[in-house]
């Protein structure tokens, strides 16, 4: 038994300090339990059908779609970082690239897994590919997410093959080397796919003429929400990456990325967030004053149903938009790690609130004279599946951190004796 425990060390990169196998196993236990519960709940939904959830024909989007939209937005750090490093040549972000790829893979694979449960009949999932409705934003989302998950898998493989044992085989090492050299192609494809599916996820709400709360005018076939979703995702992706990196640094007690890299990500996030807040504010003003009145709705009607008061709008734009943008951009706060991470955290809260409002408030509000305000509380199966996805993410990231070179700085810290 003792030797079995010791063998774990053979899989950890030389020079990388990691907690003992027993401690690591202990850390995984609650997450594995949560994942098991999630798999059980998802199994019930697949076996008995969507009657296990509290969704119905009128409230067809619930916790899972909110979760999907959120993790896909938070996972945008993967394509955006890849785009910056490989296409724009911002090599200073390289030390965080592997972590971004793994986070993106977790977010997208998790989202696809939950979507498989959410569609109710996953065995007919191929219908969307074989008989695509090219007029539906969801078709574009399905195609792009599937392709991008494939891209992320191919980007994850070279990271995986850098494991101390997996990389020992010459064929694995050579394949890793060759695939790694082609990653710029994948980064370009990933950026293209991400732009369209992030946008189409927003566009899918914007084209809902029957839901004036979400409906927006736009450019050509794309409503304004298409562009707002893209902008918000690339603004928040780097913030989420910062938060995860900071969490790893806190848990391990070691610096994982070069000093200044988090500030750089924060600045990037801040600039994009400021642009998003400006665009979102203009969009909201046009919607409240032009779009909504033109379809017969006064703006205050949307905010007359607690808990969806008008405060929510201000919280989203000001507290979770303008404030984090200022914290990430103002040199004094951006130079302070605590304020920097507070800004990143608020930005991530902003994206969660935006996706929640777009999913849940849109469906809850009445649109016809005889409609009532709808209430929806997720069933335990929905919550457990949600928890299972979180657990899946923590487990995959923990395993990746333990056995793969996720952060470029780690080894450098241990061996850089030249002082340069």
């Amino acid at each position, binding site marked *: 038994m003792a030797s079995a425990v010791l063998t774990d060390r053979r899989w950890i990169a*030389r*020079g990388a300090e990691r907690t003992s196998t027993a401690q690591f196993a202990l850390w995984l236990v609650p997450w594995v339990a949560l994942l098991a519960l999630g798999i059980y709940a998802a199994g019930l939904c697949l076996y008995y059908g969507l009657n296990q959830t509290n969704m119905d024909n009128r409230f067809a989007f619930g916790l899972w779609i909110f979760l999907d939209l959120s993790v896909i937005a938070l996972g945008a750090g993967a394509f955006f970082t890849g785009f910056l490093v490989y296409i724009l040549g911002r090599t200073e972000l390289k030390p965080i690239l592997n972590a971004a790829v793994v986070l993106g893979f977790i977010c997208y694979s998790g989202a696809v897994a939950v979507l498989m449960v959410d569609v109710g009949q996953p065995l007919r999932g191929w219908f969307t590919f074989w008989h695509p409705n090219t*007029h539906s934003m969801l078709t574009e989302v399905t195609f792009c997410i599937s392709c991008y998950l494939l891209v992320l898998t191919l980007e994850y493989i070279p990271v995986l093959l850098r494991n101390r044992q997996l990389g020992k085989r010459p064929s694995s090492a*050579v394949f890793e080397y060759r695939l790694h050299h082609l990653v710029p192609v994948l980064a370009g494809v990933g950026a293209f796919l991400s732009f369209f599916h992030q946008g189409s996820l927003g566009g899918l709400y914007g084209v809902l003429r029957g839901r004036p709360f979400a409906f927006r005018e736009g450019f050509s076939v794309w409503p304004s929400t298409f562009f707002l979703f893209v902008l918000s995702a690339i603004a928040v992706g780097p913030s989420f990456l910062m938060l995860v990196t900071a969490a790893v640094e806190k848990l391990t007690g070691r610096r994982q990325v070069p000093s200044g890299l988090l500030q750089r990500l924060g600045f990037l996030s801040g600039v994009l967030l400021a642009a998003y807040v400006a665009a979102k504010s203009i969009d909201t003003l046009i919607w409240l004053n032009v779009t909504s009145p033109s379809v017969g709705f006064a703006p205050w009607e949307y905010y007359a149903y607690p808990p969806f008061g008008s405060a929510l709008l201000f919280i989203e734009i000001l507290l979770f938009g303008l404030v984090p943008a200022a914290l990430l951009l103002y040199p004094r706060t951006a130079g302070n790690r605590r304020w920097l991470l507070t800004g990143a955290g608020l930005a991530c809260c902003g994206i969660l609130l935006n996706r929640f409002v777009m999913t849940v408030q849109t469906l809850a509000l009445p649109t016809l004279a005889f409609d009532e305000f709808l209430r929806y509380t997720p069933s335990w199966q929905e919550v457990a599946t949600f928890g299972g996805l979180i657990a899946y993410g923590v487990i995959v990231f923990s395993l990746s951190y333990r056995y793969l070179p996720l952060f470029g700085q780690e080894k450098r810290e241990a061996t850089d*004796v030249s002082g340069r």
Partner: protein
Amino acid sequence: MFPGVDGFHWTFAHIIFLSVFFTVVLTILGTLAAAAVHTAGDLRRGRAVEICWKAEFAQLPEAERHCRHELAGRVAERVCPNAFDCRHCGEYAHYAALPAGGTGIPACVGQAQTLGLNYPDNRFYHRGHTWVAPQDDGTLMVGLDDLAARLVGNPDSLELPPEGAEIQSDGTAWRMKKNGHTVRVRAPIDGAVVETGGPEKGWYLRLRPHGAADLRHLLRGPEVSPWLAREIERLQLQLTPPKAGPALADGGVLVPGLMDAMPDAEWDTVLAGTFLEA
């Protein structure tokens, strides 16, 4: 999805959408196929060792990738872009023509002892702590340098290549086991194994190079002492317990059999740094 399949229409939207989708899918699959084809080609042409080393070299910390000309003081700072293979470096001749010096470390040219270690100047040194000594009969003796020999002491077991085996530069020359740790020693030069030795003989391999041996990529002369000084500094830092306070060097020399003398040190890290393992 395709003409003839239910739902397909010869419309602008269908053609554009599906064309873009298939282009993307083909690009992704083409990338994967290109990686697989290149891999097969590399394996067939025996380039695996070279590629593995290049990939590992790229992952080494920057502090371990400094150019030999920086070590010799010919240039203030330069990271090697050629995986320590000066034979294919376009700027080698330019830098080699510059005067050495300015490192602050005595070069010890003409002496066997440098920094308390035995580094005869008639040998050529590889960054993975092996040496090469050309012989009169055209063969090359290969051994473990003094720092590595003092570190490992007497290995518990030794895995030497058979006579006649082809050794590739930067590939595995031999493996040793010591206190449960496996050490992969990188080959300093290409050649066929003529004879094998061991620690008791003071050398490990005798190689016959293919044609005239090109030793340009190996350290020699004024480069050895500064390189060694950095290696000793790295070793001191890696062997210092994490909670130990700052201390001045006492001027002592490396004791033989350091792995036996300090069994609780982080040897995994030390061996990775010493034998160029990423």
